[in-house]
């Protein structure tokens, strides 16, 4: 027994062996009959950053978990060779794995709110890692916790250590997770989609932090669906598709000279200013309706203000939307985008100002008077499942806004489903059985059923993988060209907005800080905040994180948002 422990401890020391930290060949993981990882080979050298990229279901997260012995019950793990910290991991028992986790490799997961215990202060969460691995003597633990929080870029560590996860913002929670991952000074950090739920400026800060760890000699394994994100810090990239590695190589080569069609498609699917006017899925040109001022604006807001308590969620916002136009609204979480959307939908009454729809009063009407006009403006949201009655099947959901006799309803539903590229049999299925992309298609079909003049899209693709996002964006563009619908497109993703929008509003703290043509605003931002946003966007091909802004001198994210 003693020899075993010594071997682990020796290998776990960051400055230990010169060989790879993890070396796995022909890894196969299956759950029952279903093989999710089919022959993956991967080696991570000390101080190296390796990224595994793929869409959901490609097996990338399972791979990351398997490398820490967390594959889960009911799984079978096979490999031609599997060495972790210089030892044969195929013969590891639960005890061996437990000693490695935290000490040898720290894990950072996507959703920090779920990964942290809601009942404990974040300080005690980190102290636990120190206690389990006995890294520092008990007396020095509290001090070390503060050092770790400081190292992870958490401002006011004394205050934060006493807080619980729900009192922190998303970015701070992610930093806390990173602090606990580096607590035992591991040789390797495995980060599974560490920035996916974060705003772009916060994402840039987290990437900087990870890059800093790498510079300090820690190896990184990044799991992501976003090539642009990993491109900024990875040395090597593995592209996974359907459980297999389809391409592997130095980051710059994979990003600039992809050899495999799938990698190529992934790169092409990333929306940006360059992809405007073309389809993301196949690069063909896209017919765009010319926005026309004819007949006046379809939607107009003047001086919209809405307060929650002392906070002004939307503060004096005005805009107009012309027929066939797409207006992008960008801003970070808490900037008032969604409140603005709800005001436009007249689901919320403004405190001041008003909205007109098709030149007629809208927000000042009473609900009873609004109802006949409601079908003219429709909304799709980030999570369509929330907007579906959980008892209903797709056919009934899509039929709900239609005012048609029963006999014609079915035919119209099937027609709408066909328009959004869904097979007929989807009508008789439950949304829960559908994938995220299919659900969003159902939501789009339903919103289009009333032939709206205005379609409000509130983060419609934020929960989707890049390739699925590309399909949904193409679909929206096609439908807009066909029906001439005007769109308000709300997103925190600047690339998406640059791809779809004609004009853009940049929001911060409820106010519009900048407004104008998309190309103009993003190429020559006038407001410092827009400047910061644009600079924080990770871009293809690889740029070094050192170029990214977001150092500790900049305004820090505050808690409680």
């Amino acid at each position, binding site marked *: 027994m003693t020899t075993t422990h010594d071997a682990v401890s020796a290998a776990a020391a960051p400055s230990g062996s010169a060989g790879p930290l993890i070396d796995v060949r022909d890894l196969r993981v299956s759950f029952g009959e279903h093989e999710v990882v089919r022959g993956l080979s991967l080696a991570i050298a000390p101080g190296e950053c390796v990224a595994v990229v793929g869409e959901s279901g490609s097996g990338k997260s399972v791979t990351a978990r398997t490398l820490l012995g967390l594959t889960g019950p009911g799984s079978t793990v096979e490999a031609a060779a599997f060495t972790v910290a210089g030892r044969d991991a195929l013969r590891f028992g639960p005890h061996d794995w437990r000693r490695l986790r935290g000490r040898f490799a720290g894990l950072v997961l996507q959703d920090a709110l779920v990964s942290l215990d809601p009942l404990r202060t974040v300080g005690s969460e980190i102290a636990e890692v120190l206690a389990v691995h006995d890294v520092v003597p008990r007396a020095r633990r509290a001090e070390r916790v503060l050092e770790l929080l400081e190292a992870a870029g958490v401002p006011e560590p004394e205050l934060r250590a006493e807080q619980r996860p729900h009192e922190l913002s998303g970015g701070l929670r992610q930093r806390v997770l990173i602090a606990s991952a580096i607590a035992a000074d591991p040789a390797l950090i495995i980060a599974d989609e560490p920035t996916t739920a974060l705003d772009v400026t916060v994402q840039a800060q987290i990437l900087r932090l990870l890059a800093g760890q790498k510079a300090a000699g820690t190896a990184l394994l990044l799991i992501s669906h976003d090539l642009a994100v990993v491109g900024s810090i990875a040395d090597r990239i593995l592209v996974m598709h359907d459980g297999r590695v389809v391409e592997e190589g130095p980051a710059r080569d994979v990003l600039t000279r992809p050899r495999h069609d799938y990698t190529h498609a992934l790169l092409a699917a990333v929306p940006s200013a360059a992809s405007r006017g073309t389809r993301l899925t196949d690069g063909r040109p896209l017919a765009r309706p010319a926005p026309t001022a004819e007949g006046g604006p379809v939607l107009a807001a003047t001086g919209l203000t809405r307060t929650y308590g002392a906070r002004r969620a939307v503060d004096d916002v005005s805009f107009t939307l012309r027929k066939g136009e797409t207006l992008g609204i960008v801003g970070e979480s808490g900037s008032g985008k969604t409140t603005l959307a709800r005001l436009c*939908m007249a*689901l919320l009454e403004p405190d001041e100002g008003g909205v007109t729809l098709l030149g007629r009063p809208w927000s000042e009407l009473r*609900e009873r008077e*609004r*109802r*006949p*006009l*409601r*079908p003219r*403006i*429709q*909304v799709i*949201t980030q*999570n369509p499942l*929330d*907007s*579906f*009655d*959980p*008892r209903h099947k797709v056919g009934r959901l899509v039929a*709900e*806004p239609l005012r048609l006799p029963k006999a014609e309803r079915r035919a119209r539903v099937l027609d709408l489903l066909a328009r959004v590229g869904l097979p007929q049999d989807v009508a008789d299925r439950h949304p829960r059985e559908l994938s995220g992309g299919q659900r969003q298609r159902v939501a789009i079909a339903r919103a289009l059923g*009333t032939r709206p003049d205005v379609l409000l899209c509130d983060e419609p693709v934020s929960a989707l993988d890049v390739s699925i996002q590309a399909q949904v964006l193409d679909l929206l563009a096609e439908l807009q060209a066909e029906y001439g619908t005007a769109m308000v497109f709300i997103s925190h993703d600047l690339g998406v907005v640059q791809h779809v929008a004609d004009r853009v509003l940049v929001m911060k703290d409820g106010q519009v800080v900048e407004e104008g043509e998309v190309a103009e605003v993003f190429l020559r931002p006038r407001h410092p905040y827009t400047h910061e946003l644009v600079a924080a966007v990770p871009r293809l091909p690889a740029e070094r994180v050192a170029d990214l802004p977001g150092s500790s001198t900049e305004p820090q994210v505050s808690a409680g948002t």
Partner: protein
Amino acid sequence: MRRLILPIVFLAVLAPPGGEHWFGSDHLGRDVLARVVYGARHSISIGVAATVFAVTSGVLLGLAAGLSPKWLDEALARSFDVLSTLPELLLALLIVAITGPGTGNVIFAIAVAQVPNYARVIRAQTFVVRRSGYVEQAVTFGRSRLAITVGHVLPNVLGPIPVLATIGLGQAVIAGSGLSFLGMGPQPPAAEWGAMLSEARNYLRVAWWEALFPGLAITLTVVCLTVVGRRLQQRFEGRTS
């Protein structure tokens, strides 16, 4: 008819369980098995009727509270709270004491005593559903308040009802038999389990069977309903989460 039967049954007064009378016979020579079987009709129908009544009014009141303006909701919610502080049986007894004995009154009393259980759950559910994305979405389709309440809110708040009602039915059967035992329910000679127990009390020393079998019937019914209810609860809770 009666003249013909009487001489026969006098032979079997308080006969112990045996080949003639499987569960024995009572102090009037009536077959206990026959009365237990026949009594199911009274006891269970009181339980079912009270439960149906309680569920219906509970759902309507809970929904009304959940959809009402704040002052009305508060008023309703506090009255549910007050009612549920009293033990069900005690509350039912109080109501029967006011309305007087009788099957109908017992059903009414039990139902009223159980209403808060259902109303509170439905009120809480209504709050959740009312704020849900799909109700909001239905508003954006221009559907009326009534259409949304009937089409989306009502069906979606009913989720926990089957489970609650199954367990509630068991409680209602106990309450019904309890009130009958105290002489508030169906009057003798009606065969009702609680009433049978009450009559058997006087002969307990000489004829245990007259009390045992109706008592067993009550116990088994309630245990079965509760077990089924809990099972349903486990299954549904497992599924929805």
